[in-house]
């Protein structure tokens, strides 16, 4: 692997008293399927927001494919696709209108946008709902249309924040298929999740985050180490092991009251 897709140095973010991201140094290799894992509140969304230029860091630098996110936005924004978590889309547009809008705003020629939109809607199984307003979409459909608008301009690096959260298995499989095809052609996917099984089955490179810091990073096998699963390795890394419920709930079982 040549240059890093993302290079983060000394990244900090505080919200009032609370430290959300406490000094991250990280290098994500290009052309990989990268998982950023961690429990809720670990700082994954904050980190991804700062990396994609949606949130200003208190301190630190971020480079995407060799360009500084904050000093060279022209180069960076054209090369990345983003699917944030917890932010709206322009929901009063239909799925197709949203893609037409995003593509043209990105400066692609109209005919090219329409061609790509048709293909994306087809592949993501949204063709039947393309004229429905996004506000009436289900969670899975929203994630898929968000993914489509993130992919429309064929970015080099794709950042997805919890792309499988609240998504039904069929949609999840569709999203998975599209992402696997995308990385197979040499592009980079960085996605965050707190579902270890998912990360383990999808990613070849992971970074583990907890309490605003990176606890481990590297190829999946390396991070997993001796543990039987990523879940086990993760629990050991964040120190949540040995908190078994034990005999506290020994009455629970649905039998006699």
């Amino acid at each position, binding site marked *: 692997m040549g240059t890093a897709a993302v290079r983060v140095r000394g990244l900090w973010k505080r919200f009032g008293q609370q430290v959300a991201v406490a000094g991250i140094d990280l290098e994500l290799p290009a052309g990989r399927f990268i998982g950023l894992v961690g429990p809720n509140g670990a700082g994954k969304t904050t980190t991804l927001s700062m990396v994609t230029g949606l949130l200003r860091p208190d301190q630190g630098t971020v480079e995407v494919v060799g360009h500084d996110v904050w000093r060279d936005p022209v180069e960076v924004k054209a090369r990345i696709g983003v699917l944030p978590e917890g932010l709206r*889309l322009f929901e009063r547009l239909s799925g197709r209108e949203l893609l037409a809008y995003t593509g043209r705003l990105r*400066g692609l020629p109209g005919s090219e946008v329409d061609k790509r939109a048709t293909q994306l809607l087809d592949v993501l199984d949204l063709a039947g709902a393309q004229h429905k307003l996004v506000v009436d979409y289900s969670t899975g459909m929203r994630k898929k249309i968000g993914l489509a608008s993130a992919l429309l301009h064929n970015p080099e690096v794709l950042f997805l924040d919890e792309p499988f959260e609240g998504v039904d298995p069929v949609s999840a499989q569709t999203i998975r298929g599209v992402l696997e095809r995308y990385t197979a052609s040499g592009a980079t996917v960085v996605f965050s999740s707190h579902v270890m099984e998912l990360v383990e089955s999808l990613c070849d490179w992971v970074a583990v985050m907890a309490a605003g810091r990176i606890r481990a990073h590297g190829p999946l096998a390396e991070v997993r180490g001796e543990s039987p699963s990523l879940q086990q390795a993760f629990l050991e890394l964040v120190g949540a092991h040995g908190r078994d419920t034990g005999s506290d709930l020994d009455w629970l079982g649905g039998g006699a009251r």
Partner: protein
Amino acid sequence: MSAVPGTSPGTAAGTAGVSADGVPVVSVFVRLKLSLLRNGLRQSARRRAAYIASVTLVLVFAALQLVGLIALRGNAHAASVAVLLLAVLALGWAVMPLFFPSGDETLDPTRLVMLPLRPRPLVRALLVASLVGIGPLFTLCVLVGSVIAVAYGAAAYAVAVVAVPLGLLVCVALARAVAAVNIRLLTSRKGRDLAVLSGLVIAVGAQMVNFGAQRLGSAGLGELDPAAEVLGWVPPASVIGAVDAVSEGSYGVGVARLALSGLALAGLLSLWSRHLTRLMTSPDGSTLQAATAGSRDRTRSAGLGRFLPAGRTGTIMERSLRYVWRDPKTKAAWVTSLAIGLIVPVFNALQGTGSIYFACFAAGMLGVLMYNQFGQDTSAFWMVAMTISSPRDAFVELRGRALALLVITLPYATFVTVLTTAMLGDWPALPEVLGLSFALLGAMLATGAWSSARFPYSIPQEGYKNVAPGQAGLAWISIFGGMIAAALLCVPVIALTIWLNATADGDDWSWLLLPLGAAYGAGVALLGLRLAAPRTAARLPEILSAVSKG
């Protein structure tokens, strides 16, 4: 879930078991309503204060109209006023559930689906429970006041004993029936969109009432008689019509009017009961419906794009214009601006108190729409932010939004100005007023663009509020500071207008103000966009976090 925190599971289960005879169900529902009210108030001191304030307000208002109606006794038009008042009140009862669907949780029968209840006792219980509240109390006051205003003789009072409860029941049953018939709409997205427009309906309605009251003040109450003649036969206003008829000795008419209200009540109850039964025995098809209805929701403005410039500018304009129609918050803001921008100059002209310069009001009101552009996007602004990487991009973005605004505001401001001029007949002043309007519009666009970048704030998507909690100060600075700045920016054009009007042969040159005002407006707007663009480009993350609080 704050649904039924007050009723313990034990009581709910117990009453479900004895619902067959009906009586306990009524008391359970009344108690449910009271405990919902009590628990709602217990949640926060602010809510308690708001409730007490609204109760006080309603009571004061009820007392005032009671005194007013009693004072009307003996007036020749008293019956007309009373009948109309009740008709308007009934209209309020009919539209209330459409605009405030979540106002009463016992109103939503879908919450009771799991309980073994029979339709008849349920309807009776719900009807009695809905008599508890401020609305019914106010209606009762109006009814009692109306009876005092129109009733003469023992027979009339005897009729009133039936008329007052009957009128109240018709009002309440009307609201319940409307809610039950429309419950699918009300719980869907379209229903929630409708609710956002409610504040607007009230605002425009208040303007109309205000105007109507002024007309009455000048023309006398006699104007009401023809309308009251008809409404005296329409339930529930016909109950007052009945009391009035009996007072005048027309017993037949009185009984007929009373019977009409009785029939209406029976009809509404049966309609309500039928819909209630259907709602509670058939599965909720609202999501199913939405899925199939989607194909009808086709792009309305497919041809719009053809008339817009190509590239980024046209794309931005198209999105902005679509949002005017499709986004309830944006639509509400637009309709408010369009309505007030028209009502103020035109109504003033109608009343003869107007000045032609009031026509500038339209430009001012519409210019307000340029403010907080990014707040109107909500957190979807990230999609815009991802495509802005230079001040040039930000300039094109802001210019596209300003152009979309101008597509509607320019013809509209011109139309209002010409209309006002025509009503006042002051044609020589038209060019200068148009020039002033255009200059003001340009200045509002300039300050609007700048404060969109500098003072963005969130617009909550649900409810009537236009500012997220904690950002009200920001909104005030943004809009009022901006308006003052816009007025100051217009000073050169205003000064020129005054000077031309003051000098002897100035009128010969006043037409010059039209091209000058238009050019000045365009120049100021362009300058404002140029100044706002680098600020926007440099503050994208800050703007995003400011507009994502709703």
